[in-house]
């Protein structure tokens, strides 16, 4: 519980972060920034877990634990994505989204 800040304001913040992420995911040309957008989406949901846990069920810890899980998963996912991007770079000497079209069929 944070003094002077209501749950609605924090949820609004997390929604903003989420949609910024979604927007970035759809529109960015660079794979690294797409990856960063995914991180934003994950962070928004982690924030939601923590906030809802703190404001609505202060006696429990599940939300906080879940957010730790999300952080761990995000780290793993990033490592994997970076590995893919590096291999892609070796292949086409670029990290642009438009250069990945080769993989279609």
């Amino acid at each position, binding site marked *: 519980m944070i003094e002077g800040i209501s749950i609605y304001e924090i949820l609004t913040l997390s929604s903003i972060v989420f949609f910024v992420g*979604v927007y970035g*995911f*759809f*529109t960015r040309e660079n794979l690294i920034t797409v990856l960063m957008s995914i991180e934003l989406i994950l962070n928004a949901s982690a924030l939601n877990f923590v906030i809802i846990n703190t404001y609505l069920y202060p006696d429990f810890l599940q939300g906080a634990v879940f957010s730790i899980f999300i952080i761990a998963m995000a780290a793993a996912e990033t490592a994997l994505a970076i590995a893919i991007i590096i291999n892609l770079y070796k292949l086409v000497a670029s990290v642009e989204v438009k250069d990945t*079209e*080769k*993989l*279609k*069929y």
Partner: protein
Amino acid sequence: MDFSYTILIPLIPLALFVILGIFSKKIPASISGWMGSIGLGVTFVLSYYAAYQYYLNGKVNGVYQPFIYKYNWMNFTDKLHIDMGVLIDPISVMMLVVVSTISFMVHLYSRGYMKGDDGYTRFFAYLALFSFSMFGLVLATNLFQIYIFWELVGASSFLLIGYYYTKPSAVSAAKKAFIVTRFADFGFLVGILIIGYYTGTWDFQELNNPEGSVITNWASTSFMGLSVLTWALILIFMGGAGKSAMLPFHIWLPDAMEGPTPVSALIHAATMVVAGVYLVARLFPMYYFIEDGFALQVVAYVGAISSLFAAIIALTQNDIKRVLAFSTMSQIGYMMLALGVSGYHGHDGLGFMASMFHLFTHAMFKGLLFLAAGSVIHAIHSNYLQDMGGLRKYMPITHITFLIAALSISGVPFFAGFFSKDEILTAAYENNILIYISSVFVAGLTAFYMFRLYFGIFWGKDKEYEHTPHESPMSMTIPMMFLAFMSIAGGYIHFSKYISPDHMPFEAHLNYYLAAIASTVGLIGIVLAFIFYKKENNLSERFSHAFGIFYKWTYNKFYFDEIYLFVTKKIIFGLVAKPSAWFDKNVVDASMIGIGNVTESFSYKIKGMQSGKFQDYAMGFISGGVVIAIVVFYLWIN
């Protein structure tokens, strides 16, 4: 009386087979031959002891009692079950004696004949397997057990015919024998199933009881004008005809001569090929009583025609083993026709007794003929009559024993074959004059072709041999001498005291009038052969020219093989298999391939929808998710 030790008779060869088979690489040839011979020697002693005990003490109030030791093996219904066990009755004991004698002699003989062969131990393992299966067949207590061992003898026959597996002709002969007999066994199996379905039992004692429910109720169900049980018996006889090389399933027997000669003596002369006769004899009360013996008539005519047909072919063949093979077929035809003309009660059972008697004597002299032929082949390394001649000087023992066997099979008085053949002819004369005339004619032909062989091998032209042939070793001549003894002495056993369809001894007397006719015909055959083949001359060529087309037909065995090839290749492969293959390829397969092709071309049409940009896919995914969320929300609201 206790006959439970007879279970050892099949089990000893089985143990031998397992040991020799598993350790065939480890056991040296010198030991394996002795192991096989000693094992079979023990069964030989046991069989003779069982015969002695049974025939002397097996009677209660003048009727031979069956002794049965069995346990329940598999249940189908309360009543219908398969047992495994041992049945001791007059004919099974007689068969035990035949099989163990021939098998023991062949084991002894093979020690010399197969010497130096690579697969020596394997050969003895197969022989033991065969002996086991044959003993099991003989001792079977019910139809299903006999069928199991029936197939086992077929399999061991296959293994032994194809023993020289590097020789393509042996391999194809083995396949042919297996396929032809297996095809016939299909009939046997269907017959067994019909009997199981309609009578609810497979047990010989229940089936064969003349007052039992099976025989008295034969007319209850009929199919196409005949009782179903008659059909079943005809189908069972089909299996018997396949194993016994009766027309039209005889084509495998001449080719089976590709196997080693001891195998021909054991399996294709004395034991396995008479399994068909044994089967009919085993079910004789059924054959006789059901439908007033209609199936038995079929047996009689098939036997008579086969015996005549085979005897004619045997006249023209040049491979000595093939002549003997056709001779075997002809003699088995005799046994079948004797069963076919037999009655049931008392003296009417003469044909049945004669058939078993001839089975016994035939096993002895035909086994001997094959062993002697093997001894000749062993000496000069050829099967063909053209390569032989004047061998009497080199191989005295083989010569004498072959002569005894040939006299015996020709029905010359005081040899074993004379007595048994006379009983058969008497039975035929009393019941069916047509069959009698054909049988007498066959007796003449038999004498002629046998002495054609005899003169061709041991007299005839004096050939110059590259390697001087010499007499076979003792290991081969001793069994031959024993069988020569049996080929004379076997005829003096009073079979009618021991064997009859109703298990009651009766008195059979030699019919001198008929015996005189038969032996005169036999002697005429021998004299003719003497004129034709004693000295080298061109009489036989002149005669074969005179017969022209008929000679050619006979020489080619009436083109039976060609007919079978025509039926299988042209009709079955051409008219049935090819259209089915076409249907499978163009309808069944094609429809499946068509579905695949349509899917593929459709997917080519729509693949442009894939842009390759993952953001487009994500867009699709998210907008789909949003649409579903809206729909769910809307429905929830309502």
